[in-house]
């Protein structure tokens, strides 16, 4: 019987390669991997060729939507290598980390009651956010603090073990970051350092506690003898989360040697400094060692220092380094429980009679797992852990989500590069630069093989200059910039996105456990030939085609479920009603939202419908504009069954709403929906009924809404009147139009109406042919009895931002002109600013034409008498035939 513990670096291709070699040599009869044991039944799926990394294990609590955790795996992840090795050689593989049932469980009641309450408050309102954050994959990392500090690991815990010690910081941070509570965690914990770091790291954003705890860390790491780590500590302190860790380094560590403690502090610090994101404390002990050795990239350091040592077993060296790092350090809190659980799992495997046990875990845990601890003390640590029901499944992941920039604490900077390192059979430098050249060529940058040759030479020369055995990503990027891109930065950024990060997305087989909703969506995706991808893609759908119509419905329904896979591109409401443009981009967290939405129904349609109905009938009913938006979505998503409910809610709401302006605002989207209905073949009868009711109410309520308004209110109402008017013109229902115009003309004559509105109503009526006595009205308005301010407002409303009518109607212009000329100086001064504002809106040519006319107003009006009708007739006929098919032609052509 022997137990071998392999300390790896999460998502490190160097680790993965070394691990593959070591496992092949040792041929273990069981492989134990750091990961949630609930996933054990899913392990055989990893042998399925349809399961393509990057993928992630998703643990969620089916009963209470919200908490979720991810454990991502890329092809180059050592855990994945271990898993594939076990499956290929037919030996059992098990996950041995603390079960997600415990990590996702709410906190035990005995800790920090005050935070627990805050917690609940927060939970009530922020389930969504928590899960979102989880998906954001802040996820990662185990958190030392979460359960202690009363953080029900609702937050994402991430890939446990990712960064071991760092990891605990991370998780904690995730947890608190989401919740915003958690300061108490610091105080309580026995080992303030450790937990403190987690808590602070999280809050990252500058809670005062951070600074304090950070300071000692920084100073500690500055201890002489540890130049590298000192540097890190300092750098780390830049990110608030770091500070906390630094503290942990110093305080918890007890400083058994300057070097050691310095490194530790530094390590945490540097982890935090990572990319300065929310990861606060990224657990990357190997990264710290690498940085201490002057390397920016831990992979590069691993390759240079560990793998280049030849056949020597790197794991022994790593274990030794970690042992030195952890000297005098006692795990506590969640980390302690995790390590206890892992030890128990190893004991269990040994008891079951396995001879050669291989344990694959984050390097940080190696010393703890090798340590001789009595089983009884581990059992004591694990007693009475809170538990929650957890479901686990595989979900597709993307390289973008593996990057640190995405908020994934144990993320790596360059998944694409690591993938390349892992998969390239040989000559990684040449292959990489060739691939770069291909990407650049695809984007139209002319790059020849000659360029590639020179880039390889430059990269190699740089590597030599920097004393590195092989060019790494830094050298390759610089060679790419200097040779392939000829100094330009833009193509370099392109390479960064397409290659260094990569746009790869994983896939999971049919047999993966899924909620029925996911199955339904996959079936729909297949049927509609829409493949989820991690790359943005535009689709233009022609709604007259059944396939495209179905696609559009699916995307709209998913939007109802908060799965914004497609976002309408460009103008959401284009001129045409039969074309839609969508931008499709799949994010891994959509799977979580689907799982959550699984509560609403088993198919996308059903779930969307249930969601809409629930929203419409919520106890606190949404207001009118929300309801109309809901109705519109209902139509777009083709949910006829939900429509009556929404309509009823809408009708009730409209009946109860006394505010006519709200009714007016609600009308346009509904009318738009009516028009869409035709193209989409949705039954619109209930909608029509609601619209009819709205129009009647608006017409009745308008006089009330329009009385005694100040300038601002009048202006606001003016905009609404305009849109309603346009909407009714679009709807083209004679009954509505008549009613509307009638109420307008009644209103326009009211002397108490605001001048702006009176002017605009007159204009609308004039355009509709309902005003015959315009000169009389105008002269009434501008006569001496009317205050000049009102006259000016009337003119503004009447002209409605265009001087055309004045240019073409000399009678009106001369009326206006004589009014202006006759104004006494004091009134002129009062009216001038208003008129100035009105005229300033006109286009420059209009103003010029107006001025020309105003200069000689007495000229005879141009007469139409000399038109040669015979010659004009063919032109008129052609114009009419052009207009006719689209239905724009006037009903009675003259």
């Amino acid at each position: 019987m022997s137990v071998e513990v392999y300390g790896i670096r999460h998502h490190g291709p160097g680790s993965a390669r070394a691990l593959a070699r070591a496992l092949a040599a040792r041929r273990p009869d069981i492989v134990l991997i750091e990961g949630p044991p609930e996933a054990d039944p899913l392990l055989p799926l990893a042998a399925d060729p349809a399961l393509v990394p990057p993928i992630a294990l998703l643990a969620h609590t089916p009963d209470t939507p919200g908490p979720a955790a991810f454990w991502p795996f890329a092809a180059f992840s050592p855990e994945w290598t271990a898993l594939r090795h076990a499956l290929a050689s037919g030996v059992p593989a098990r996950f041995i980390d603390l079960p997600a049932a415990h990590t996702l469980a709410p906190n035990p009641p005995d800790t920090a009651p005050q935070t627990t309450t805050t917690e609940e408050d927060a939970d009530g309102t922020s389930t969504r956010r928590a899960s979102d954050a989880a998906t954001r994959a802040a996820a990662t990392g185990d958190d030392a603090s979460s359960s202690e500090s009363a953080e029900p690991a609702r937050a994402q815990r991430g890939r446990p073990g990712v960064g071991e010690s760092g990891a605990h910081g991370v998780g904690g941070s995730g947890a608190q970051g989401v919740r915003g509570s958690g300061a108490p965690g610091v105080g309580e914990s026995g080992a303030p350092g450790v937990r403190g770091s987690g808590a602070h790291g999280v809050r990252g954003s500058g809670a005062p506690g951070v600074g304090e705890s950070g300071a000692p860390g920084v100073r500690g790491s500055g201890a002489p003898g540890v130049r590298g780590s000192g540097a890190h500590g300092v750098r780390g302190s830049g990110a608030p989360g770091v500070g906390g860790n630094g503290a942990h380094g110093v305080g918890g560590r007890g400083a058994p040697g300057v070097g050691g403690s310095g490194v530790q502090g530094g390590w945490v610090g540097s982890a935090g400094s990572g990319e300065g994101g929310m990861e606060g404390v990224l657990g990357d002990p190997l990264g710290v060692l690498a940085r201490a050795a002057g390397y920016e990239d831990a992979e590069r350091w691993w390759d240079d220092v560990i793998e280049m040592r030849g056949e020597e077993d790197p794991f022994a060296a790593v274990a030794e380094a970690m042992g030195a790092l952890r000297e005098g350090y006692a795990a506590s809190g969640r980390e302690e429980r995790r390590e206890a659980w892992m030890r128990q799992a190893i004991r269990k495997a040994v008891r079951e009679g396995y001879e050669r046990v291989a344990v694959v875990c984050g390097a940080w845990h190696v010393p703890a797992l090798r340590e001789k601890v009595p089983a009884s003390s581990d059992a004591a640590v694990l007693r009475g852990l809170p538990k929650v029901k957890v479901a686990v499944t595989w979900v597709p992941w993307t390289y973008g989500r593996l990057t640190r920039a995405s908020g994934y604490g144990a993320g790596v900077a360059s998944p694409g590069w690591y993938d390349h390192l892992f998969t390239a059979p040989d000559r990684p430098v040449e292959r990489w630069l060739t691939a770069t050249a291909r990407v650049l060529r695809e984007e139209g940058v002319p790059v020849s093989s000659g360029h590639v040759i020179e880039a390889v030479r430059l990269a190699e020369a740089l590597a030599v200059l920097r004393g590195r055995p092989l060019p790494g990503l830094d050298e390759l990027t610089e060679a790419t910039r200097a040779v392939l891109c000829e100094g330009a930065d833009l193509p370099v950024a392109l390479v960064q996105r397409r290659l260094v990060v990569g746009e790869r997305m994983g896939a999971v087989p049919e047999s993966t456990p899924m909620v029925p909703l996911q199955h339904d969506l996959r079936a729909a995706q297949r049927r509609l030939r829409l493949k989820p991808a991690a790359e943005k893609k535009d689709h233009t759908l022609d709604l007259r085609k059944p396939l495209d119509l179905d696609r559009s419905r699916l995307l709209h329904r998913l939007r109802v479920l908060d799965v914004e896979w497609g976002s309408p591109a460009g103008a959401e409401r284009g001129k045409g009603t039969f074309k839609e443009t969508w931008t499709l981009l799949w994010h891994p967290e959509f799977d979580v939202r689907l799982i959550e939405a699984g509560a609403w129904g088993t198919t996308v349609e059903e779930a969307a419908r249930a969601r809409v109905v629930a929203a419409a009938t919520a106890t606190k009913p949404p207001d009118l504009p929300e309801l109309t938006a809901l109705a519109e979505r209902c139509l777009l998503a083709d949910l006829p069954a939900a429509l009556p409910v929404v309509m009823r809610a809408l009708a009730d709401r409209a009946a109860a709403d006394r505010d006519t302006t709200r009714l007016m605002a609600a009308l346009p989207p509904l009318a738009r929906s009516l028009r869409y209905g035709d193209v989409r073949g949705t039954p619109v009868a209930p909608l029509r009924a609601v619209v009819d009711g709205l129009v009647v109410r608006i017409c009745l309520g308008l006089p009330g809404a329009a009385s005694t308004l100040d300038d601002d209110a009048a202006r606001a109402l003016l905009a609404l009147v305009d849109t309603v008017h346009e909407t009714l013109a679009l709807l083209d229902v004679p009954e509505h139009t008549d009613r509307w115009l009638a109420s307008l003309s009644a209103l326009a004559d009211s002397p108490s109406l605001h001048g702006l509105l009176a002017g605009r109503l007159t204009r609308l009526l004039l355009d509709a042919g309902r005003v015959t006595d315009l000169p009389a009205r105008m002269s009434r308005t501008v006569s001496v009895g009317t205050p000049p301010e009102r006259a000016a407002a009337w003119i503004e409303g009447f002209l409605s931002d265009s001087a055309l009518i004045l240019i073409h109607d000399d009678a009106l212009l001369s009326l206006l002109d004589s009014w202006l000329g006759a104004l006494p100086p004091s009134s002129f001064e009062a009216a001038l600013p208003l008129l100035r504002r009105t005229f300033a809106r006109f286009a420059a040519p209009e103003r010029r034409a107006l001025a020309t006319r105003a200069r000689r107003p007495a000229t005879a009006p141009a007469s139409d008498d000399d038109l040669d009708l015979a010659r004009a007739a063919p032109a008129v006929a052609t114009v009419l035939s052009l207009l006719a098919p689209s239905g724009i032609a006037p009903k009675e052509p003259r």
Partner: protein
Amino acid sequence: MGEVLRPHAEQEYAAELGRLAELDDRPRPPGWKLSPWAVTEYLLGGELSDGTVITPKYIGPRRLIEVAVATLATDRALLLLGVPGTAKTWVSEHLAAAISGDSTLLVQGTAGTPEEAVRYGWNYARLLAEGPSPQALVESPVMRAMRRGAVARVEELTRVPSDVQDALITVLSEKTLPVPELNTEVQAVRGFTVIATANDRDRGVNELSSALRRRFNTVVLPVPASADDEVEIVSQRVAQLGRALELPEPTTGLAEIRRVVTVFRELRAGLTEDGRTKVKTPSGTLSTAEAISVITGGIALATHFGDGVLHPADVAGGIHGAVVQDPVSDRVIWQEYLETVVRERPDWGDFYRACREVSA
């Protein structure tokens, strides 16, 4: 014979280069006087094992110099791009001095640079008297560099007419220069390479053909990243120039330097350093090099006509001249800047008055 006005880099820093060569135990590429590591150290500064301090010649990202040195070490040609005044020529001179010990193999690119400057010319008296002969041949700096395995420098490559630029293609790809008149050729000795500089502000004067472009590795020299870097560059150069011109160092130098650098940076970026106010950008380049000459000019004024202390009045004239290149539009921009930015700053009263006086 009097002292030269401006010694070449290899003369001025002969002591540093000598120490570097003595202590340099790394492998040197063929034809190189120093190893690539030592060249990098010479450019970026540092302290040698015997305590000799190497002054930094270039203040900026280390990786740029590393890429440049690695390029030359692979006997590729190096193209230094950048807006005027970003130390392109300076870097090229020091690279040549460190690598070949000779920075004088220089072709200055102008619109009138003839092909002879890149290839070879003839001593016509001899040519007529003796016919074509090696003695009648007048070598260009490039040809000499090829014979000696040294670094040739081409300044302002984009100003050179295209046909003359193309004469470089054979040199760079075949590493040979045929002389058909003598039925012979000059083959480059190892160590030969070319450092060209080009200004990417007026790109398109004579844009490089892609055939030529592809024979260069390109390094873009940026304007200094931070105000502190720039102040450092300016004060260091001013101190050196001051020494060369035997100007005593005035006392309030640094404050005034910082002010000039701030003005230049703000006008160049179109934004004040605090990021709150937008300003218009004048037509001039306002490079670090110009800031250096403004300060040097100010020091000369202060020394010879003032009290030896650098006052705002001493630099005001220089700044005005550097900013106002176009007498109409730049003048307006400069006055706007004075009235809206300079005037508001509490400690800048003297400077504001001095500038007003000059521009009035």
